[in-house]
């Protein structure tokens, strides 16, 4: 059995795009690809948590960054992990301008839809990395 693909979203608190990244990650982990993906919290990597570091060392990671600082991507790399694909919320939004995200604790409808689009893109990448669709 192939190891689960690690998904690491942005941890930007108080940022709309950070919320979109986390919403997308939750949707992937809980609904779209629960059998082939696992969430690793960026904060745990920052803390140097052994389990989190082991997870990113053992499996390709998909990162979802909320801004150009790309903390998720950088932290996976600094933790010894391999970033198989990095997604940026802004890039997805540029392709779906009608889905304007608003809100922080609770996203507006546009933000939720944007998170869904992003989650589907992440899921497709997980399938690609796993070599087939999640049954």
């Amino acid at each position: 059995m192939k190891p689960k693909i690690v998904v690491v979203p942005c941890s930007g608190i108080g940022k709309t795009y950070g919320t979109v990244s986390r919403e997308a990650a939750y949707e992937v982990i809980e609904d779209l690809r629960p059998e082939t993906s696992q969430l690793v919290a960026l904060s745990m990597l920052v803390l140097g948590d052994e389990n989190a570091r082991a997870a990113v060392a053992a499996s390709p990671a998909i990162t979802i960054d909320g801004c150009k600082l790309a903390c998720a991507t950088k932290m996976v790399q600094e933790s010894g992990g391999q970033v198989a694909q990095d997604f940026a919320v802004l890039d997805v939004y540029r392709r779906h301008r009608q889905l304007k995200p608003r809100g922080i604790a609770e996203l507006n409808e546009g933000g939720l839809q944007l998170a869904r689009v992003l989650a589907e893109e992440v899921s497709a990448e997980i399938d690609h990395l796993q070599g087939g669709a999640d049954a």
Partner: protein
Amino acid sequence: MSDYFEYTLDKFTFYVPKDRYYNPEGLWAKADGDRVTVGVTDFFQQHNGDVAFAEVEAEGTAISANKEFATIESIKVDLELPCPVSGVIEVVNERLDLEAEIINQDPYGAGWLAVIKAADWAGDQAKLMTPEAYFEHMIRQAEEETKGL
């Protein structure tokens, strides 16, 4: 001697070139004869975050100084930009359509917004801030921002 002023606050460093003029809202204007290239400052782009979309009024549009001529949507805010000069928009930076991030990457170069054929550059220039004045203004803005943190 450096071609720009530089100011560092916390982890941020802001640059202000000495070869152009500025309005208080953070737009610059650089003249070549009566053709004036305009854009946003480094402080503006860092303060407002990653730019998602930037739109400038169409080429041929007549504009007045301090009137809106462009809009920017960033990850933080939607902004209407007041033009630093009066005249007619001669060229719009077409790269902004697909690569709005160049405003963040190179605000004083490739991220320019438009070239305007100025109606009265000398008059507009006199009302704009010198690099020295804008630099001081920007420092005050930056320090004011950090007070709220």
